[in-house]
């Protein structure tokens, strides 16, 4: 069974701090994604990656960066955290280069609060 693990369930950070959210998947999936979930806004794509060292901007990349040095690991970085980045962050993965019909496997999320 596919497992996507996010390193922290809850994080509280101060405005201006640099924040790292880590995600690891154990099924050798090519594709990895970072979404944020906010009430009334659904899931919005921040960044995604189709391969090691490769990244693509999603719909709301401003204020974020990512790193994918190994196939199984995809990190989301908040360079200088702000209160409007308080949210639930969800990592996901799926397989294949033409993976439109491959369901996403999600981690359990990281609830980030920026004060």
């Amino acid at each position, binding site marked *: 069974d596919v497992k*996507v693990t996010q390193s922290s*369930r809850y994080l509280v950070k101060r405005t201006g701090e640099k924040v790292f959210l880590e995600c690891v998947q154990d099924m050798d999936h090519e*594709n990895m*994604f970072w*979404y944020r979930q906010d009430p*009334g*806004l*659904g*899931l*919005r*794509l921040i960044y*995604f990656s*189709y391969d090691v060292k490769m990244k*693509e901007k*999603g719909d709301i990349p401003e204020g974020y960066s990512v790193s994918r040095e190994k196939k199984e690991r995809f990190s989301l970085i908040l360079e200088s955290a702000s209160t409007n980045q308080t949210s639930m962050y*969800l990592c*996901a993965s*799926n397989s*294949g*280069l*033409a*993976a*439109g*019909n*491959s*369901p*996403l*496997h*999600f*981690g*359990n*999320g990281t609830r980030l609060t920026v004060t």
Partner: protein
Amino acid sequence: DQQVKQNSPSLSVQEGRISILNCDYTNSMFDYFLWYKKYPAEGPTFLISISSIKDKNEDGRFTVFLNKSAKHLSLHIVPSQPGDSAVYFCAATSVYNTNAGKSTFGDGTTLTVKP
């Protein structure tokens, strides 16, 4: 412009009755549609999907219907059970475009099934 819309934020049904969750999309390039279910404090999990070459897909108590001309899909749950109480997300993607695997999500509908 929100490309995938779930116009009902919430739905309440009695146990044993049918639950119908609706989803509309605007982008004609979408050709694959998925439903995910999310319990509190967990990540979304894949429930059922449908390709645009079909108009119906069934899996046990869950059936998804697709009306391409209306750009509308619906998820039917029969009979509804209290354990079905969750947030349901509709997602759309394209198998063939260069960003295959990048799903666009609706805002979600919270289903409550009353015993």
